[in-house]
């Protein structure tokens, strides 16, 4: 298994609050890794370390190493544009831009290169929408505002928008929490299909979801990564008492 993201003694503080404590983990390429844990344990925070989204928050301080393809992304000289192009993120609430469907998808292409030919853009739109299984639904509505889509379509569009910039890693922070069960099932199906091409890390509150879609699982509690390993093992034979308690539903 190829290692895609490795964290070594990762610590993070929001001001004085110690939100991530000595996290050591290892995310493999072409696998889906789920991060689970009770509310406020630092799942989103960890995810947002990987594309340095925490930089937007004032007073954040990080220590340790986060390696991807051998580069420590926490270094001050890390190029955030390149990093975020490589490691993309899907948010909890679908957040398409208030632009047309077409403009949403070509957004990434346009910001990373000048003067792309119209043909090329059309091509990007088609392949991206196809890979999230939206092409047939939307091919005649590309000029329509993206904000008019259904929630599920919006979330798929956000995934398509991300795929259009050809990342290696997809970070997903509770991507299904605003969707109904059927839509959730379809998005999970999509994740399995995307797995062969990407490293996927998904934060979820929903243990069934983690069990259904992920290959590996990490369990977090109060900023610590308690246990990390293959999903089957974590769910059937957890090593740590606290993991067991959580999985059997003894925490909120």
């Amino acid at each position, binding site marked *: 298994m190829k290692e895609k993201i490795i964290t070594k003694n990762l610590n993070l503080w929001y001001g004085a609050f110690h939100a991530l404590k000595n996290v050591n983990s290892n995310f493999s390429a072409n696998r889906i890794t789920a991060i689970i844990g009770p509310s406020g344990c630092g799942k989103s925070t960890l995810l947002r370390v990987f594309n340095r989204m925490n930089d937007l928050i004032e007073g954040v301080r990080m220590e340790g190493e986060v390696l991807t393809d051998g580069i420590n992304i926490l270094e001050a000289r890390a190029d*955030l544009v390149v990093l*975020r192009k490589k490691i993309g*993120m899907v*948010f909890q609430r679908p957040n398409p*831009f208030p632009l047309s469907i077409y403009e949403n998808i070509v957004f990434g292409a*346009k*910001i990373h290169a000048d003067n792309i030919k119209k043909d090329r853009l059309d091509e990007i739109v088609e392949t991206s929408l196809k890979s999230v299984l939206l092409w047939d639904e939307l091919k005649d509505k590309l000029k329509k505002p993206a904000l008019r889509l259904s929630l599920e379509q919006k979330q798929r569009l*956000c995934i398509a*928008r991300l795929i259009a910039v050809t990342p290696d890693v997809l970070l997903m922070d509770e991507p299904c929490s605003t969707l109904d069960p059927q839509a959730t099932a379809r998005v999970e199906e999509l994740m399995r299909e995307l797995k062969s091409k990407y490293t996927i890390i998904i934060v979820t509150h929903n243990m069934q979801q983690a069990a259904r879609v992920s290959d590996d699982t990490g369990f977090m509690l109060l900023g610590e990564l308690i246990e990390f390993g293959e999903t089957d093992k974590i769910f059937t034979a957890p090593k740590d008492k606290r993991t067991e308690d959580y999985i059997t539903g003894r925490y909120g």
Partner: protein
Amino acid sequence: MQKIKEFIIEKFIFICGIASIFFVVLIFLFLLKEGLAVFKFVKPLEFLLGKNWYPISEPAQLGILPLVLGSLLVTLGAAVISIPIGVGCAIYIAEIAPLKIKETLKAGIELLAAIPSVVLGFIGMVTLVPLVKNIFHLPTGLTALSGSIMLAFMAMPTIVSIAEDALYSVPKNYKEGAFALGATHWQTIWRVMLPAASSGILAAVMLGIGRVIGETMAVMMITGNAAIMPNSILSPVRTLTATIAAEMGEAVVGSEHYFALFAIGIVLFVISFIINVTADLFLHKDQK
């Protein structure tokens, strides 16, 4: 007892509400009655497109085209100056400035809005007018350009504060989405924030311009007050508002001059009304 009190208060408030509408209607009717009377003396087209404004010659010539052009020229100039600077300033305040500078700038803008227009006009007269005169080697610095610059200062606070509001209320997750795709700060502003705030910004611009069109005192002081057809931004002009202010005192009540000034009032009213309604449309589009 409580009930009677409620009843009286309710009725009182009702009367207040009705009264304001009543007065607006009354003013409007008066304006219409006095203004439309001018068409007993001139044809509407002659009035609107006539090139000569000689209200007290014999026979009086009542063409308001030079005044309309004067207003348009001054307003257009003010718009060209104030829109880019105002919107730029709003972007800086909403997105870029560190907290301290932001507060200072906002206070500064509010202060600018608080300066009475006469005072601005006076300052413009002693500073701006000679400057324009010297830079362009003109016989007089009392020009449309001076008026435009001056009015740009008056439109700026409106534009900045409303546009800043519009930018500020763009949902944070648009910004996060753009950053997460690797957009730079400027790309995020240009490609996401501005389109998202566009209707609010347009409303800001319309309201700013509305203020400019209605402004009287300051323009009267520094645009030269010559009711001639302007041939460039560097000629003296006279605006619609300044005409009314300057001539109302001397117009004989009931004369054609008097009616013509009211008709100018109608023209101004229509222009302001259109601008306000447009701004309102944009604002409400935003809230939807």
